[in-house]
């Protein structure tokens, strides 16, 4: 288990928990990131830059702060 921010590029995993307020939770949900969804980390920028994740159909860029609050169970 690690946070989305700590994942390596190319790693896949399942969302275990999303921290943060209700509004943030709902915003993530509308774009397909919710408890149980399977994601792949597609990219990130240096120096605590944004993280890009692939959900089943699309890619989403989110800030490093948000990525730290998302816990992932990494799959082999």
């Amino acid at each position, binding site marked *: 288990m690690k946070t989305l921010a700590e994942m390596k*590029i190319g790693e896949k995993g399942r969302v275990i928990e999303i921290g943060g307020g209700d*509004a943030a939770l*709902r*915003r993530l*949900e*509308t*774009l*397909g990131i*919710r408890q149980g969804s399977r994601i792949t980390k*597609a*990219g*990130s*920028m*240096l*120096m*605590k*830059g*944004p993280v*890009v994740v692939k*959900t*089943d*159909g*699309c*890619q*989403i*860029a*989110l*800030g*490093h*702060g*948000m990525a730290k609050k998302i816990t992932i169970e990494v799959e082999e």
Partner: protein
Amino acid sequence: MKILLLGNPNVGKSVVFSRLTGVHVVASNYPGTTVEYAKGKLKLGRDTAELIDVPGTYSLEASCEAEEVAIKMIGEGDLIINVIDAANLERNLLLTLQLLKMAKPTIIVLNMWDDAKHRGINIDIKALEEMLGVPVVPTVAVTGEGIKELVDRLKEAATSTTIKEDGVDPWSKIGEVIGRVQEVTHRHHTLLERIEDGSISPFFGPLIFLAVISASFLIVRFIGEGLINYVFDPVFEGFYMPLMMKISNLLGSSGFFHDLLIGELIEGSIDFGESFGLLTTAPYVSITMVMPYIFSFYLMLGVLEDFGYLPRIAVLMDNIMHRLGLHGAAIIPMVLGLGCNVPAALSTRILESKREKFIASTMMAISVPCMAQIAMIIGLVARFGLIYLMIVFLTLFLVWLALGVILNATIKGESPEIFLEIPHYRLPNLSALSKKLWMRLKGYILEAMPLVLFGVLIVNLLYLIGFIDIISRMTRPVVTTLWGLPKEATSSLMIGFLRKDLAIGMLRPLGLTAKQAVVGSTILAIYFPCMATFMVMIKELGMEYSFRGALIMISVAVIVGGILNLIL
């Protein structure tokens, strides 16, 4: 009858809209291209319906302004066309379920059907219709495939009998639907997907960015200069000049009408850049000097937009933009501003807070010159040497950075984090690309060119009645003393409210030194946006914020002009 086009951002609503109404609106491959409603008419047999292209929303939970407005619009609509990205069914269905629960006649458009097939996604349309209880039409809007069927089946639009307000978790319902109608076959990564991964990787991303930006810059300059030197200039000098000289002779080479239409003769002949007549300099500036650059810039921008590169720039620039009180997505108004500041000021709507909108529009209005202005700056400054051109743009860039840092530190609040959907790369469709380019060129020709003509008229009249002299005397302490410009530059600053390209054109006959040309161009970029841009800012930010912005602009112009005059 009122028909609403609704759907997630970047699913192709605007393309469907254009196909249905014949009214062309700008469509691109990034979320949030449409920030304003577009309305059009749609013929249905003998009736005419009104079709409204509603800006995209991910849900109807009223968690942001766009969603609240969408909910209000639905109340007024008679029929809903819900556009869905077929390659992205699961996420799109959230909005679809919410729409169906509104119990309005609905029809679903499964757009980008070809894209889904390429990605190995198979959707059982009959089963989807059955589960949702409304008609579903697959389309490829960019090529027009399926649009006829959509029109034919509009009358079948129905209120769903299968989806009702029932308190069940929407995601479990969506899971059920997906499980039954969608089948994904495994396939290998395409080349485009490899480039997708590369352009957001920490190492290749910035490299690709630098390559793309320098290539774009070179291409815009190459095409722009090429068109000016080998097409427009020869045509103007070879065919238009003799005609104008005849008219000049007919009018007796001087006098009121001669000066108004042809302008001042320079060493006995017309100088298109300097004579300043309605028939000479006005068309020369807008057609020969500016239009080639407008064409080449929007050609390049169109390719980058439709390919889907802009949101990647947002990811790459996010870190820097955070230091300026913004986040990555704010780079989009800046890039659009290089074309024209008016749509750029509108596009700040993609930013979440008022603070961000204010910072972004102020930075854009001050430091991002539009392409018409850039073309004229190149014409004015480049002949002194490339280094002077670089000083102008480097100064604007440094002002941009400094302004962002200062505004971020002085305005209360924090910048929210980036949260942006990154679309898949798509190969631009040639006909869609040329339509968009033509629309933007037409916009320039219809809106900008008359203003240039009007500007030349105003300048000539104001000179004749001596008004410019009075103003020049009043502004002398700043214009001549502080900035080191000739006093005639004042009239150019006045015309700058109307059109920046013309304003810079007015500096040409003044015989400026290299230093004065640099100071003049930089100040004209900074001191105030053109009227059209300022109007949009007032609409978007309100009076108070816009005037606060204007105050910042004028102060920055005074300071930067003074500094440049001192150190150059």
